[in-house]
């Protein structure tokens, strides 16, 4: 099966690149229900659609969010895929559109298209161990996967979350991470790049956590999301730990326009990130990694 065909077959909420339901070009209207700060510079929005549709999505998928009069950008779904009545997105302001979105207050109007793209390979992970490695805001697209794994906990072996962040103030979903590690059957290791005294957790880059993961490398599926440099070094560390390239999946980010596989804005050689991704099996995109030109 070609990568595009597999991506299409795997998208539950419609064909990859084309969401189920009405005109995929037309933003649907939603309202902000709540806004909360989830780290030093990331805000989580809860959105309810004006005309409620099923908010079903596959962990790893994204929506195109519109700040009216400013622009539209891709943002991953970061909520619980089982909570069908609301859409959750976690946003870090880096430019005009993401800043306008992150500043939206309850009641504000927002546009949305989607969900788009491929999801994390939960089916492939059944029966084995799952290693989730997140860097910075990369925990947002991985949070739905953790919800799904915990909802079907008995179907998986050991589940481990390795999370790297810049500093203690940048740790995303802090309270939830603590509760995952305390109450759930999931092993959590958090590290920060640097810390002043007072932080009694781990300090060091996220790759240093890989040897701590209590998983059986040959029966582990690894899900990785974060900045590309971090993902590259993490893949090397996972491979050195014995996890084969075919069992490593990552989520790629590229600027997008249509999100429908038509405009070519998100093209990486033969791959369209919006249609074939954003989640890819590492061995299939290995050659696209680390090219300055791409």
């Amino acid at each position, binding site marked *: 099966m070609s990568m595009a065909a597999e991506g299409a077959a795997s998208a539950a909420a419609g064909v990859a690149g084309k969401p189920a339901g009405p005109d995929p070009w037309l933003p649907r209207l939603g309202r902000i229900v709540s806004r909360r700060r989830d780290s030093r510079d990331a805000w989580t929005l809860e959105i309810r659609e004006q005309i409620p549709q099923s908010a079903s999505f596959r962990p790893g998928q994204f929506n195109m969010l519109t700040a009216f009069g400013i622009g539209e950008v891709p943002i991953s779904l970061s909520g619980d895929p089982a909570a069908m009545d609301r859409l959750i997105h976690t946003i870090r302001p*880096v430019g005009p559109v993401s800043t306008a979105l992150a500043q939206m207050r309850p009641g504000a109007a927002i546009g949305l298209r989607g969900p788009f793209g491929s999801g994390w390979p939960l089916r492939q992970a059944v029966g084995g161990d799952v290693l989730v490695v997140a860097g*910075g805001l990369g925990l947002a697209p991985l949070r739905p996967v953790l919800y799904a794994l915990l909802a079907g906990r008995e179907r998986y072996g050991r589940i481990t979350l390795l999370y790297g962040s*810049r500093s203690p103030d940048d740790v995303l979903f802090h309270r939830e991470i603590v509760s995952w590690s305390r109450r759930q059957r999931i092993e959590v290791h958090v590290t920060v*790049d640097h810390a*002043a*005294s007072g932080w009694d957790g781990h*300090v*060091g*880059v996220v790759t240093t956590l890989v040897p701590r993961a209590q998983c059986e490398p040959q029966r582990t599926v690894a899900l990785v999301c974060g*900045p590309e440099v971090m993902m590259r070094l993490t893949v090397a560390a996972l491979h050195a730990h014995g996890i084969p390239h075919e069992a490593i999946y990552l989520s790629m980010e590229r600027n997008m326009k249509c999100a429908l596989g038509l405009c070519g804005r998100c093209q990486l050689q033969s791959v369209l990130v919006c249609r074939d991704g954003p989640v890819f099996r590492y061995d299939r995109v290995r050659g696209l990694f680390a090219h300055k030109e791409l």
Partner: protein
Amino acid sequence: MEGLEGIIREHPFFAGLDERFIALVSGCAKNVRFEAKQYLIRHDEPANEFYLVRHGRVALEIAAPGHGALTFQTLGAGDIVGVSWLISPYRSQYDAQALELTRAIAIDGGCLRTKCESDHDLGYEMMKRVVAILVQRLHATRLQILDVYGR
């Protein structure tokens, strides 16, 4: 001594080391323990010893004017603390502070260096292992300097 040899043989830093060398290393080793907040290593002091951590956690710190001590790495069981014993001018480049009760094997750097000088096969083995750690830490430092999460 047999106890020490066993611990050294099992420690990841010495994995696969020839038995002859294990005995040589053990001759420079002793058991130590540090209470929480006690320093294993002080910046700019002679690097007389390095440590194979067995239990506990250690923070590597650099003092930054106006910011107090900044931790740039924490180490735990299976890690080694201190590499300056092998590299001239044999002075520590940072502070290493126990974050909790930490048990370790201390190896006398001067003693092992002398053995490395008189047996270059041992010296080469030590050099390979220390270089591997330095390369890991160089990669980590690059990631930290790039501040990848901040962008």
